[in-house]
């Protein structure tokens, strides 16, 4: 399934680009993210506690950045394994363009989500809703952490 959205963020394009590459901000923005470790350049290991309705499970996953074209676009790919439950993969192409003024940025993203194993079998009717919900949460927190309201958030986060 595919999610396509355009978000308008009140921050300069350089600031948004910096945020998209900052492990601290990405960790804050990823819903339920407990660990976000830099493994090598542009490769990260994450631990996420997913909580959607009855599902409450910890997933381990990898995130990789590629097609990096600062400060305009990149591709962020994540994959996670949920043990016997199956796996989930997501690839997001993110591109930025200047908004109405220097303190505005238009962010376009296109996310492709694939789910396999039992997770797909039992959850097929819920996957799109869940993916939409998680991506909305991600971009809401991302926006917050770049604008003023996000300052409190950053202070709360350890490391």
């Amino acid at each position, binding site marked *: *399934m595919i999610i396509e959205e355009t978000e308008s963020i009140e921050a300069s394009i350089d600031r948004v680009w910096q945020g998209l590459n900052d492990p601290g901000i990405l960790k804050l923005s990823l819903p339920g993210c407990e660990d976000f470790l830099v493994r090598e350049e542009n490769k990260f290991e994450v631990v996420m506690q997913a909580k*959607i*309705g*009855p*599902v*409450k*499970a910890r997933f381990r996953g990898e995130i990789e950045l590629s097609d990096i074209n600062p400060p305009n676009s990149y591709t962020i790919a994540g994959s996670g394994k*949920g*043990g*016997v*439950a199956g796996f989930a993969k997501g690839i997001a192409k993110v591109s930025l363009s200047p908004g109405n003024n220097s303190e505005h940025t238009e962010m376009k993203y296109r996310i492709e989500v694939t789910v396999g194993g*039992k*997770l797909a079998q*039992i959850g*097929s*009717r*819920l*996957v*799109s*809703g*869940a993916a*939409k*919900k998680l991506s909305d949460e991600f971009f809401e927190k991302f926006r917050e952490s770049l604008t003023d309201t996000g300052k409190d958030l950053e202070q709360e986060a350890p490391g």
Partner: protein
Amino acid sequence: MYGFKYHRPQTIEEATKIFAACEEGSYLAGGHTLLPSMKQRLAAPTDLIDLADISSMRGIREEKDCVVIGALTKHEEVASSELLHNAIPSIADLAGNIGDAQVRNRGTMGGSIANSDPAADYPSAVLGLGAVLVSDKREIEADEFFLGMFETVLEEGEILKEVRFPKPEASVYKKFPNPASRYAVVGVFVARTMGLVRVAITGAGPCVFRAREIEEILTKDFSAEAIRNVRLDADLMNDDMHASADYRANLCVVMAQRAVRELI
């Protein structure tokens, strides 16, 4: 499934006390969503608090202008209730078409409502009738209760005790079921009281919602013809292997028309 402690409290007070004391507790009603999730190791509560013995949370009774249904009342009990067949037959009909006989003999009304599955049937009756949800702490209006996919205003540890459904002049629930699971691909609940019309739709979006545009038209002109040209926003609809978003958007209007025709 991972190991867990099993509790079987006799009262609501006892249940909330156990919940507050355990590391990661989960209440168990009919268990139709929770237990499969646990079996897949997608959920691992340390403590399972089975509400089955709390008899005060079961049963159906009539009050002046409404029917009160205990949260632990099973779908089958609702479907076969004579009281409901006389007072609000649409609820009995809705319950009688949930899943299959096994599901209806285990699943509970409160479990379905508190879970807020996008395709559950009960939330449409709650919202369509403008019911009041009574928890161990407070009373909540239906319009405030459902927040999103699997999300309600219920807080951690809060228990939904019973639901007060006001008696409408007329109401009906029309569902387009998935042929295998009987989940609502789209389900439309239409209720009419003192000239006002409420229309609640389940299955179509991430969570049950009121179709205000359809309500407004039907309040002025209660006919299937009047809502024929309504187009709901497909961007807000679920899209999965069972039905596309466009299909669902269209189906909402089709099912609303069927509901209206039945009420005329």
